[in-house]
């Protein structure tokens, strides 16, 4: 623990696009940092703001929600509805004293393996630069 701090990042990703994209990054052996743990849901529409709050409350340093591009949702517009909801999260996070950059929603399709790798790289970079979540220190 002492040597190098590694961020704890939770990813909630949809089965049809981002999870498939992440799998594709795997088949293509596109390398990216390992600091993300993913939960698969069928659609980003399933993502309850509670999950994100819970993650931060539990000490996550960052959360990524990723789904299909608009217009590409397997369930027509679950991603759109999720995005509207996720938009609200940002201000709530600010009120909780968490930099809103710790939370991101992205759109990665099943054919965008390289993009997935890039997204994770980006998120890890952003969160690493921000350092440990202020909430985590507060908890301790």
């Amino acid at each position: 623990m002492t040597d190098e701090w590694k961020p704890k990042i939770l990813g909630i990703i949809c089965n049809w696009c981002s999870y498939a994209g992440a799998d594709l990054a795997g088949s293509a052996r596109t390398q990216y940092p390992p600091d993300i743990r993913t939960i698969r849901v069928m659609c980003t529409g399933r993502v309850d703001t509670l999950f994100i709050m819970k993650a931060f409350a539990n000490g996550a340093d960052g959360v990524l929600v990723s789904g299909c591009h608009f217009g590409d949702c397997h369930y027509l517009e679950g991603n759109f509805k999720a995005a509207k909801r996720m938009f609200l999260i940002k201000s709530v996070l600010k009120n909780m004293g968490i930099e809103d950059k710790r939370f991101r929603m992205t759109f990665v399709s099943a054919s965008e393996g390289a993009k997935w790798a890039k997204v994770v790289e980006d998120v890890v970079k952003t969160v690493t630069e921000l350092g440990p979540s202020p909430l985590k220190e507060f908890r301790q």
Partner: protein
Amino acid sequence: MVDETKSQKPRVGVYICHCGTNIAGSIDIKELQDFAQTIPNVVLADEYQYMCSTPGQKKIEDAIKEHGLTGIVVAACSPRLHEPTFRTASKEGGLNPFRFEMANIREQNSWVHMHDRQGATDKAKDALKMAVAKASLLEDLFPKSVPVEHSAMVVGAGVGGIQAALDLASSGIKTYLIEKAPTIGGRMSQLDKTFPTLDCSQCILTPKMVDVGRHPNIELMTYTEVEKVEGYIGNFDITLRKKARGVLTPTEAETRGIVGGGCNGCGDCEQVCPVIKPNPFEMGMAPRKAIYIYHPQVVPLIYTVDFDSCVKCGLCVEACGEKKAIDLEQEDEFVTVKVGTAVLAVGYELFPVEKKTEWGYKRYDNVITSLEFERLICASGPTGGKVIRPSDGETPKKIGFVLCAGSRDNTGIGKPYCSRFCCMYSLKHAHQLHEKIPGSQSYLFYMDIRSFGKMYEEFYYRIQDEGAKFIRGRVAKIEEDPITKNPHVLTEDTLLGQPVDIELDMVVLASAVQPTEETNHVRHLFGVSQSMDGWLLEAHPKLNPCGTTTAGVFLAGVCQGPKDIPDTVAQAEGAAAAASIPIHVGEVELEPYFAMCIEEKCAGCGMCVNLCPYSALDLVEKNGRTVMQVTEAKCKGCGTCGGFCPGGAIWMQHFATPQIVAQIDAFLLGGEQ
């Protein structure tokens, strides 16, 4: 749902797969296994070389009985690959298959962190913890079987769609073949001959077109487009727009009480129509009237009025006379049909190669595209098969073929992919030229000749032997001699290392191909994804090339990616077979990921009702309270309602809030309990 295993303390069995060195090469399996033993609820942690192999699966089956397991976790590849395999194994072992959970430590771990063993192992540990947490809370679920409508739809009637429809229909399935153009046949009907055998394209296609026309199980609907798609595998409700073609078929005429009438294709109307427009089938090189057919062999042989250009003079109506086939006031009609599965075969179009301005297409008269060349050399084409120079009608003797015209191009203007059939048809064009015009000379400007099919390299050999000249260099530019209108092709012969300036009579651009404009619209209707380059995305490039991620929807032909006729037909047969399976089985199991209302918690606010994209939810009165109710048959399990309900009153089966929260907790609190 009385469930005896529910009250029991969870007993989870964990299996870690090496996948040879795919996983074991980057993740410390031993460390992971030791760790697994320490996770709460885990009663057994095993590892094996190849979990998906028969002995691997057997391990699971045996352990379930032996250890009274209530949940299984396999840490291996992606659930998108082997979840079905292990669900079956769990079932074989006597456990409800939905008590299985997979931890993806290959695609999303060992393969993407190949050089960070510790990072990968740590990540795998968390993935295991999370999967065990979820498995501990999983419940028995029972998939619903739904009957499958004994009919299918094929969208697009090029050679791909035609083949798929014939196969489906011949296996006894009622098949709707939908074509937006007035005739079937697609691109293949525009071709003169086909490589490598040089069969006449029409000769081999026409019998199939005729078969389609008279197959008792095929309902052919030309000049028709898909308007709306509802439902799911087994039960699609598809609304079609039958565009007003202004001309009645004999059957349509009969329903209107016109006995013995309707269009018989006599063409009298065409003679009198005063409006002249370019014929798209002839790539605009020949005229057609406002009432027209593409070419004499159309199926069905019914004329069509182009209402965009028709001036409603009524001359055609007069000419048609007693047949009373023409109805200038006809309007679009909508019909809805029910089908079990669908095959998309919507084909392709040429990349607008004029965008590559250095080659001067549309600026220089004697620079044409390959499809224009097909029409020019075709005996039934606008010149009766006489190849002529557009600038002066002379017979060209020296013709250049520019390969990769817009393909393999990363500038953002062209297409990054290889269009796959242009090498071969350019070889064919060279042959046709030599055959048709004695003393003619072809020049093929190429980067690589991709002749990878059966008898293709042999064809290349043959064309070389016939005297075609191959110049290995991508064409830098084409210049027109302002006086003779002769195009000069400038490139480097890279094998000689010398710039070349070759004066020709005519140049044919082997233009790249691209998805048609409407492909995007169609794929949205059917919920099909696209690849990076816009082609429709198959479920798996190798193991499921005809399927899509939408159950019951399949792909055939170039709409999935450039391919020639043999490959198109092969894929069409594959798609037809795949599409017929659920129909012949007669029922499909739907994944039981439905929403359920926890009535005690539901406030009856109704917010979820509007969110559901499939109108699966309603508010109902129950015991004096207003609560939400799910129609399971309509619910597709997206979870949008569950993600939103302010009161947490929606239970999303298999993705329930406690299950997801348990995963989050396992990741973030796991070590600290």
